[in-house]
């Protein structure tokens, strides 16, 4: 009897250890998402609204503002993430394959942007790329443009160039950060074997290193994409008035006095969360793949 009791306690122990973290994850994170879902369905018990309907979804999904915001967010996040991944891996590769003796410290510069918040990233892009910014001044100095209005409006423009640049500036180093050590290990381990079997430098990278790095790259892609798809600061600071990015639009609806708009905001949130969950699924899948290879 006593034995069974201790056995039961032993089984319970990991759950007790996980409890504090789970209070936050379930109590705030999951609850927040579930309540957001309920509110998106028009369920506001605090305000005496108990009826569940899909009306708000129908409203929002047919709204042209929403649709253009959705396209805009998808486009800026996707382009910024794709560029970050491609260039981030390239930078990892370049750092590993070109050893510089004199300016060793410079290499660590890439870690800088990871520590900088979105607000400051937006400021940096603003300073450089606004029509009176440094780049425009250099172009003027070179005689390429005659006036600051000749410089293409990269910030606050509908094309979202400024937003993409800000996400790229933060995302590229992140990808380099998560790939560089793994790439270096893979290179030390497999590059010589592959070369010994007759693979050229490019072939080693293409057929041996890149496929093994793929799960890491994929998970990095998912994190960056979901993050930029749901972040507020950069599109708020660098975006045009139309189309607005989804998070910005969501907050505008949310801050509106009219209650219906709060439900609309929740619909947008659910849309953002939906994409994030797809990314999460793919992320978990990428890690299964990593395990399958025996871990990199």
């Amino acid at each position, binding site marked *: 009897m006593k034995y069974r009791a201790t056995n039961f306690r032993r089984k319970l122990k990991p759950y007790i250890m996980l409890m504090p973290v789970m209070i936050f994850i379930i109590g705030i994170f999951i609850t927040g998402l579930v309540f957001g879902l309920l509110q998106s369905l028009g369920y506001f018990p605090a305000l005496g609204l108990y009826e569940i309907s899909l009306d708000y979804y129908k409203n929002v999904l047919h709204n042209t503002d929403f649709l253009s915001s959705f396209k805009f967010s998808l486009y800026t996040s996707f382009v910024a993430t794709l560029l970050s991944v491609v260039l981030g891996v390239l930078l990892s590769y370049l750092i590993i394959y070109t050893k510089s003796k004199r300016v060793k410290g410079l290499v660590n510069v890439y870690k800088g942007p990871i520590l900088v918040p979105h607000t400051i990233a937006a400021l940096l892009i603003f300073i450089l790329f606004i029509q009176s910014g440094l780049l425009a001044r250099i172009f003027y100095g070179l005689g390429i443009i005659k006036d600051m209005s000749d410089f293409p409006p990269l910030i606050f423009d509908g094309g979202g160039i400024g937003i993409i640049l800000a996400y790229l500036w933060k995302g590229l180093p992140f990808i380099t950060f998560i790939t560089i050590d793994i790439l270096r290990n893979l290179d030390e381990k*497999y590059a010589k*074997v592959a070369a*010994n*079997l*007759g*693979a050229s430098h490019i072939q080693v990278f293409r*057929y041996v290193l890149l496929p093994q790095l793929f799960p890491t790259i994929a998970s990095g892609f998912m994190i960056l994409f979901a993050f930029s798809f749901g972040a507020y600061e950069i599109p708020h600071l660098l975006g045009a008035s139309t189309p607005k990015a989804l998070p910005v639009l969501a907050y505008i609806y949310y801050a509106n006095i009219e209650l219906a708009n709060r439900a609309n905001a929740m619909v947008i949130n659910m849309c953002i969360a939906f994409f994030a969950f797809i990314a999460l699924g793919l992320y978990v899948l990428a890690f299964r793949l990593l395990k*399958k290879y025996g871990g*990199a």
Partner: protein
Amino acid sequence: MSKIRINDLSKAYDGNQVIHNIDMEVEEGELVVLLGPSGSGKTTLLHGIAGLVHMDKGSIFFDEECIDQVPIEKRNAVLVDQSLLLFPHMTLNQNIGFGLKMRGVHKKHIDEKVKNLVELLELGGHENKRPNEISGGQMQRVAIARALAIEPRVLLLDEPFSKLDIVLRKNMQKFVRDLQKKLGITMIMVTHDKEEALSMADKVAVLLDGTIQQFDTPDKVYERPASRAVADFFGMRNYIEGYVENGLLVTKMGAFRTHHSEGLKLTYVFRPEEIYMNHETFEGTLGVILSRTYLGDKITYEIACKDQILHHITLQHKSFKPGDTVMVNFDFKNAIYFMTASKNKEKSTC
């Protein structure tokens, strides 16, 4: 397959000379084993042949063609490392076909070749598994198949079996040896395992401190070590020094009749199993048993004999106890000896 010639090769790491002026020739279809303790430079030499390490001095020739300037991927000297390094993201088929794919060989030819190798290395049924789904012995064979696929000019094996358990190791040794003979592969293998070297090699190169001390057939290397260092490496532990006077070899153990000419200084070497002891006769040198270690199939003794400690191994279970006095006998007629040069530098006379 090629004939390999190594000419005056040297390599130092941070001023530490790892390889000293090595010369060596490996005939086509020959299996040469580089035998030596860790740190003797054998892996460096192997990596030098593969092109993974750049040598400071000297040249390597494949069929009289100097390959010093040929980059790794063009050398066709394939190394199978002890950690195998199979590509974890590829199936066995893809692993084996990798080298051919890199050369742009047509897929049909790759498939054909891989199929043959799978059969040859008894890997049938596992073709589409990944490396982490097969056993250690199978991984070993995949690594060899992957190397053989590109028809290397020489196959280089670096301690290939050191991570296998003893039974599997014996099987793989025989398997690789048979395969090498069957296909006529020029093969250079590195090991620190004497038994493995002696049982597999056509020729053994004993590498000590970066130089080849002896390069000969296994029986010669074992039975006629060229130097005291080689003898030491093969575990010969009883050395008896002496000089010739009046037709007798005078040593601490006594004087023995000899055919050597007057005035020579000699060092005789006896393996632990080559000295004899008993307590029934009075012939021989008197010794006292110091210790006895029971090893199951054999027994080892330490014997204090004059002021020297002799090591003896016997298969007999005739039991001596520490403290027993015994008579020790040596067979000088068939023993190995070195001339003791004036400055302790031995020269082989075999």
